[in-house]
């Protein structure tokens, strides 16, 4: 993504055109229609750029000749921040990457550090994580779908998906104590066990959700107005999708069946049965179809997790020793109290080494590369964010289309700037 972009000097060009000699009379003066390219900034605060993305466009009439995404308006330096705090302290920062699916981010980060610390994860913890990650996927896709609907002029869809998302947020609130910034994972565990009867409520949500989802999708799937805006718009070929590093529903929309939950299962995903939907053409409509189908598959996974929810520990035993002693012991036992002080002030004692872990997040593959030189803080933490890579295809896919098509493409790519700029 090149950031050097020269504005065509419109004023100078106009002046030059005026200076041009009048055509000599008598000569067959061809009526010359001079056009100029116009440059236009879309964003950083534009409703259809979904956050603070600026799209520097060069227009020939209404046709785009160049599109240049300018990112970084939301840069906070999360990777550097991570070097200055202990592993558990960074969990709230992972909420703020893809803030539409914080539970999935929490989980990806925790698993990365757990692999570095070589912890054994109990099955109940794995199940909790799969459950929350899939719920996060549903809520993220609901938001993505609703926003896509608004972008192409379908307000109603947004209203209905938001209502469902609200129900999920109520469940998140009950589980984690917060709706958006969940901070649910801890290294080797979760902040708290599931509340009483919560699984039943999740199950009830799933049961009522499927018919509503079908109703919402029926508003768009065979709607000619929606199809006019999306079919054959923003076609990303298989080869392009792969070479630009697209992941998630955007890649699968182009027909590449890459899903880490199947290809490199983590956290016990191999136990659950689900399909990987792939598109055939790679246009905006395919990406919409993939998201719709993925929600149904997520619900399928959630139901399976609940059906065979394992009992036992929800915190890895070794993690208690390294990262956080159990609270009831801290309150009553002197040794654990001292241990608690040591862990918080000096940081957990981690082995030296490096680990790269990537998880299939709602937006695509979220990777954490953690380098430790031992001690309480990571020496380097690199975040591979799916939204950043997904955006890189914009200059390629937008050229030759209309501005209104760009709006549809931005909606169909479903990115989050909090994660793109991190």
């Amino acid at each position: 993504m090149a950031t050097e972009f020269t504005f065509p000097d419109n004023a100078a060009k106009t002046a030059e055109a005026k200076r041009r000699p009048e055509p000599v009379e008598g000569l067959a003066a061809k009526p010359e229609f001079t056009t100029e390219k116009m440059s236009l900034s879309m964003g950083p605060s534009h409703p259809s750029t979904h956050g603070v993305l600026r799209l520097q466009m060069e227009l020939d009439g209404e046709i785009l000749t160049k599109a240049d995404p300018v990112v970084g308006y939301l840069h906070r330096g999360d990777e550097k921040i991570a070097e200055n705090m202990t592993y558990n302290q960074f969990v709230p920062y992972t909420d703020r990457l893809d803030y539409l699916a914080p539970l999935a981010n929490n989980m990806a980060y925790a698993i990365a550090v757990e692999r570095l610390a070589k912890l054994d994860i109990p099955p109940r913890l794995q199940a909790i994580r799969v459950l929350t990650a899939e719920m996060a996927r549903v809520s993220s896709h609901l938001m993505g779908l609703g926003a896509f609907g608004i972008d192409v002029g379908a307000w109603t869809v947004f209203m209905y998906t938001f209502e469902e998302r609200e129900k999920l947020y109520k469940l998140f609130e009950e589980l984690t104590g917060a709706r958006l910034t969940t901070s649910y994972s801890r290294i080797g565990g979760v902040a708290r066990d599931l509340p009483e009867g919560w699984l039943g409520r999740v199950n009830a949500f799933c049961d009522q959700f499927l018919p509503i989802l079908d109703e919402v999708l029926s508003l768009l799937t065979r709607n000619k107005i929606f199809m006019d805006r999306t079919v054959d718009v923003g076609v990303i070929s298989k080869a392009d999708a792969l070479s630009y590093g697209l992941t998630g529903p955007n890649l699968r929309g182009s027909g590449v069946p890459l899903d880490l939950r199947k290809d490199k299962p983590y956290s016990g995903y191999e136990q659950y049965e689900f399909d990987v939907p792939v598109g055939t053409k790679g246009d905006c409509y395919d990406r919409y179809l993939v998201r719709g189908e993925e929600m149904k598959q997520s619900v399928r996974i959630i139901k399976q997790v609940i059906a065979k929810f394992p009992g036992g520990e929800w915190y890895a035993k070794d993690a208690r020793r390294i990262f956080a002693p159990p609270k009831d012991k801290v309150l009553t036992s002197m040794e654990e109290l001292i241990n608690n002080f040591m862990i918080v002030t000096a940081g957990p004692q981690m082995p030296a080494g490096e680990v790269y872990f990537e998880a299939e997040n709602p937006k695509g593959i979220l990777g954490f590369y953690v380098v430790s030189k031992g001690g309480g803080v990571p020496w380097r933490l690199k975040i591979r964010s799916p939204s950043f890579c997904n955006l890189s295809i914009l200059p390629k896919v937008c050229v030759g289309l209309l501005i209104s098509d760009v709006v549809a493409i931005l909606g169909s790519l479903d990115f989050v700037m909090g994660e793109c700029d991190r």
Partner: protein
Amino acid sequence: MAIVPLERKPLTLAERSYLPGIVGGLKTTLKHLFQPNVTMEYPEQRPALPPGYRGAPTLVKDPHGREKCVSCQLCEFVCPPKAIRITPGEIPADAPTAHVEKAPKEFEIDMLRCIYCGLCQEVCPEEAIWLQNQFSLTGYTREEMVHNKQRLYELGGTLPDPHLKWDKKLAAEVAGGASH
């Protein structure tokens, strides 16, 4: 389990006339028109908060009215956005809780920095700092949004304490006659 290519059937002639899309959409909207409201008149109606909700951090007292914080500064240490500032102080020797030895002289939480993550509550060895139900805090000035000790206790109130470990310590000291 499989890879499922999504099928795209061509639209029928009727569907291409835009009419089924429009009529179907109107039908769905009409159906929802007669369903109960899902919104809430916010300042008058308040949402029910689940137990364990992470609202604003507060300081609490134990059932005897003793301030629980012993100013160990662990929350100050763990706070990711560095919102907490504590000045430790001594409890005077003639006070009834002199055996606790320390209490905060000043305790400030900058609510403009606080991210409600709950790590302070998680590490607190005295269960003195609790995230409770306040979720909409407003003020006219920045100073107002820095909660001092008095304000934190006002918000916190008293919570039950299953351990009462300082009472046990005092009882043990009295029984054993040990000074330390």
